[in-house]
């Protein structure tokens, strides 16, 4: 427990060192709103993500986290507001184009290609224009896919059809698929959902590792399991009923009364 916390702090320090002072904003979100019928799923949310930042977005169920991701990856378009990626407006763009610009995402509910073997799942992403471009010289697509699977610890299941693979492994496969296009911004939608503590631990480490490997890549994690997330990220944004109610470092958030209220359903009465 203590060790883990140490581990987390260290990386945070390292992260700032790598980045230095000159942070460039990769993703700027201004006042986006999206409503379904009468329900405002995302309500006037603004934030920006710096290059190489590791950010967590938390919030109770129905806070609009997944909708926010769908907006960022252009599966939905907002009713109002702007989303800029490296200064370019991406609203209304086809989802696959956004991926090829450099925003990749995973899904909360795993969506593997069930008829394909695990390695072919990754090769689909490598077949996209950006994925194909990012394959290093003198490397085959298969080699690159195998390397990616090794990074997330799936090399043993490489040739297994995805329908025979367990849920925890599929979660990691999702990440490998997203990484295949070497995104500048990686959106992870509840990567720890439905995983046991061991798997959470493993995944935490591999996310950290890929963060360190590619320091210029920003990673946004949506999660409502706070325990794992708080150790991992440097900054946390809290959504509640579609509104951003707080942002700050994990420590600040943990001590923020409003956030605690939202999560516990009311102010905590000290005994």
């Amino acid at each position, binding site marked *: 427990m203590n060790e883990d916390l140490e581990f987390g702090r260290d990386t945070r320090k390292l992260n700032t060192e790598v980045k230095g002072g000159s942070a460039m904003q990769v993703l700027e979100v201004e006042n986006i709103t999206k409503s379904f019928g009468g329900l405002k799923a995302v309500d006037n949310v603004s934030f920006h993500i710096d290059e190489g930042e590791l950010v967590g977005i938390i919030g109770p169920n129905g806070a609009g986290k*997944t909708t926010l991701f*769908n907006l960022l990856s252009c*599966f*939905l378009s907002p009713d109002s507001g702007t989303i800029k990626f490296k200064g370019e407006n991406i609203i209304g763009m086809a989802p696959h184009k956004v991926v090829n610009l450099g925003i990749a995402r995973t*899904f*909360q*509910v795993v969506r593997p290609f069930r008829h394909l073997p695990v390695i072919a799942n990754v090769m689909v992403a490598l077949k996209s224009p950006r994925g194909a471009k990012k394959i290093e010289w003198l490397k085959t697509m298969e080699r690159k896919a195998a390397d990616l699977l090794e990074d997330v610890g799936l090399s043993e299941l490489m040739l297994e059809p995805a329908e025979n693979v367990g849920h925890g492994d599929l979660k990691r496969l999702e990440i490998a698929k997203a990484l295949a296009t070497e995104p500048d911004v990686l959106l992870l939608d509840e990567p720890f959902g439905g995983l046991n503590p061991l798997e959470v631990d493993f995944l935490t480490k591999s996310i950290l590792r890929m963060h360190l490997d590619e320091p210029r890549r920003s990673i946004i994690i949506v999660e409502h399991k706070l325990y794992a997330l708080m150790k991992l990220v440097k900054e946390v944004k809290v959504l509640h009923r579609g509104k951003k109610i707080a942002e700050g470092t994990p420590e600040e958030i943990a001590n923020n009364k409003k956030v605690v209220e939202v999560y516990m359903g009311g102010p905590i009465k000290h005994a």
Partner: protein
Amino acid sequence: MLNDLIEIFLLGGLQSGMYSLLALGFTLIYGISGVVNLAHGSFYMLGAYMFVTLGAIGFLGAGTMLNAVFVLVLAAIVVGIIASMIYRVTIHPVLGDEVAIMVATVCIALIMQQFVIIFYGVTFPRVAWPEDSILMNTANILGVTIEYSYIAAFVVSLALFGTLMLIITKTKMGKAMRAVSQDVEAAMLMGINTERLYMLTMGLSAMLATFAGILITSSTTKSAGAWMWLQPLALSFAIVILGGLGSIKGSLIGGFILGYAEQTVKTTVPEGGAIVGVVPLIVMVLVLLLRPKGLFGKRVELEE
């Protein structure tokens, strides 16, 4: 010109009511169990043949109007029972696989077609009301000659449509149907026997097809044939796609759009009778290009 307009308005409207009834069964079974029933036209055909066969046996005094109405209802019930048995044996085992369902229903349609050919031969038995009944007379409304049976078919169609709406909104079975169409798994958890419900729905859908078959045939061509299932099938899927698969309101409105479109072509285009079968399909294609889920189809943006 004015005559044409009146003709389009009257004949098109009457025709539309029957088309809606035809499409209703197709949309019902899709909306509730997700089965694209390509054998829908076959139940239409089977209904007409059943009407002929049962009529030949003769109940309540052959050749009377009472007999004809009785046979109409009896035929619908028989076809309904046959359809739900066919459903249980052939479609239920492949439920969930879209392509397999379509192939299975196509096979059923072909089997029924061959069955009819073998048993009835390549003849065209007469499907009509008794000669002396009032329905066989013609009326002259605003200069358009219309047979009473045509008007009766329209009225009965709308009445049946209304009855079905009542069944769906008021009865317990209707509630179960709506529940299943929204969420099968949740409905199963609430203790709804989906298998039996699907069988019932299939029977109901086939009954509607039978009514449509007898009413339309007896007021238009007045003869049945082994290949008569194709045109109604094309028509009903055009209507249903136009209105949105699984939408009952859509099938009513789609029926009216296509009924009027067909009648317009029939009266205005020379030699239009020959290509009138194409009209619904072309309208359907055009509408789908503008609205991929039909006019009233369910919209699912990003299923998660």
